[in-house]
């Protein structure tokens, strides 16, 4: 605390009265000020660091450790006899099949969300401020009720005598089954994660300087050209952030496929759950699956962010 006064002085404009700056002394003061500043920053950030260590780093470390443990014959996890056996099972046909299905469903979900969200976010961003606020509240209203409850509501909507099937049958389709299909799972995921696509897209489209689009049009760019060359590149940070926010939770989805899925819809989340709860009780394998997914996701996300430019 001894250098507290020095900090205050340094923050005030130095009273030099046109004299040549005394380089050495000022540099020293600046250095102290920076140090104090960074210490204060650390203190302000401390709760977050503690939170991250307690609720992220430590649990993650335990998962990593368990992934090298052994499952005993009776289904207990033996911490000891460390080995890589669980990682060896990651290339099983079944794991690859379920991974591929999760990847596919998550990709379709992300693309559908993007296609729906982009025009919607653009529409919101170009409204008058008051309307904008109202529309954003509407986007967020679903968060006011529980995700599980809303997913069960979809079960009713998609059921055999529910409105969706009725409408499809009215149009002329016969013998439609929606509930418990991959379509139902994708629909549920799109519904659940659409706001996560709209909000970052809105944020980047709202910042977009529309005079740039006007300039492009003035220089005889067609509407499409102006979008492709100006709007789209400028909104890419939003596209990337939104895609990641939708893809990652969809890839590891558990609740939606459990409730809306049936045959041919097992995704990674359910497969991992089955390793922990139930008779398989293979915690090391479940941990190995989780760790691998986490690291693959981290690497992929890093590359994706990098490719999105430095604006993020």
């Amino acid at each position, binding site marked *: 605390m001894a250098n507290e006064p020095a900090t205050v002085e340094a923050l005030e404009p130095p009273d030099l009265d046109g004299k040549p700056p005394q380089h050495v002394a000022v540099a020293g003061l600046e250095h102290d000020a920076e140090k104090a500043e960074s210490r204060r920053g650390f203190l302000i950030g401390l709760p977050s660091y503690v939170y991250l260590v307690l609720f992220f780093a430590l649990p993650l470390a335990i998962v990593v450790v368990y992934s090298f443990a052994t499952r005993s014959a009776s289904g207990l996890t033996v911490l000891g006899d460390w080995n890589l056996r669980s990682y060896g099972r990651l290339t099983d046909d079944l794991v690859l099949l379920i991974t591929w299905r999760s990847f596919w469903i998550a990709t379709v979900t992300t693309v559908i969300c993007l296609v729906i969200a982009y025009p919607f976010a653009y529409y919101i961003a170009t409204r008058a401020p008051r309307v904008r606020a109202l529309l954003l509240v509407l986007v967020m209203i679903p968060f006011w009720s529980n995700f599980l409850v809303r997913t069960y509501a979809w079960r009713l909507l998609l059921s055999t005598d529910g409105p969706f099937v009725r409408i499809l049958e009215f149009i002329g389709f016969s013998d439609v089954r929606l*509930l418990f299909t991959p379509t139902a799972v994708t629909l549920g995921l799109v519904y659940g994660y659409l706001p996560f696509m709209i909000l970052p897209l809105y944020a980047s489209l709202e910042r977009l300087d529309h005079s740039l689009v006007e300039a492009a049009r003035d220089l005889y760019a067609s509407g499409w050209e102006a979008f492709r060359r100006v709007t789209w590149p400028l909104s890419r940070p939003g596209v990337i952030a939104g895609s990641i926010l939708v893809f990652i939770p969809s890839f590891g989805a558990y609740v939606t496929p459990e409730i809306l899925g049936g045959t041919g819809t097992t995704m990674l989340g359910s497969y991992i759950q089955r390793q922990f709860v139930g008779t398989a009780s*293979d915690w090391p394998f479940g941990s190995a699956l989780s760790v691998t997914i986490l690291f693959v996701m981290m690497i992929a996300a890093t590359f994706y962010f990098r490719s999105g430019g430095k604006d993020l």
Partner: protein
Amino acid sequence: MMRRWMVAAVAVSLVLTACGREVGGDDPAAGDDTGSEDTTDDGEDGAASGVSCEVDEIDGDLLLYNWSEYMNPELIDLFEETYDVSVTEDFYTSNEALLAQIRAGGADFDVIVPSDYMVEIMIDEGILLELDQDAIPNSANVDELFATPPYDPDLAFSMPYQWGTTGIGLDLEAIGDDDPAASWAWLFDPDVAGALPGPVSILDDPREGMAAALYWLGYDPNTTDEGELEEAADVIAQARDWTATYTSDQYSELLLTGETVAGHGYSGNFIDNFFGADDPDRYTYIIPEEGATIWTDNMAILQGASSPCTAHTFINFILDAENGAELTNWTYYASPNAAASEFIDEEITGDPTIYPSEEVEANLFFLENTGEAEILFTDLFTRAQG
């Protein structure tokens, strides 16, 4: 950029130090697990873990942890009056939730009521107190069918509470058959199940799902023969064409709402739900003749229970002939108490879906822990689900 790398470095070093400590065995998580390993050995030796109680001894109030809607409140009142103690009952919804709570050390209960396979897991983990058989003279009332169950062969740690079967619930109106055959064909035969007007549901449980297919093929539900298990998985995979979904908690609702016309599920849940349906006669529960799974829920006492002797007295109280009958007359689940039969309502004992005939009873199997093969069951079932 620099800042970001520093955070990453901190995270990595944390993970590393955690690992280092883990191997050393100082980590609390590691400590816990080795601890339970040790108690397992104690449990199996049965040496230090038991307590000694007198018949009808009371050493404090009773905390009972049970499934909901599973205890006749009048029995609780009677127990409280007779022994001048207070009973607090709390409820759980799944065996796994119960185990997780006990493992985490958050279950301060005397008596719990886990299902058969969970009793075995809990014995293995050293969670259960070895019973003082002398304090439970009414254990002589236990039906011989339940006297030597595979999960606790000498009833050293548990006493059966109620039992039931795993079979099929059917919507008679939809299948157009008033007297349906008791067969797994309703789920697996392409000519029967494939021709139904609606889909079926199968339990989302690798052991129960595979067992159903194994019964249908005429195999032992506890087989560890890879060839037989793969055949069973093929049966389930083939049934995908007419299977709506795999569920362990919604099969009755799906049947009652017409989403399915046949469902694989537990006797008690079906019978309860049919009872509350608009038209109870429209539905029935069958126990397939090819073989079916029998399950029990069992009273057990936790290690470290604060009133172990009251707990013994309570178990003895429930195993009394008349009290056991009062329980079944209230829950509509079958009683493992042979002496209770004469006091149970005829409406219940005469119902073959609750009390199956001797022939059917001879064809009921407990699902046993198959050790390493559990992984095979899980993977084959997951693959069969598609």
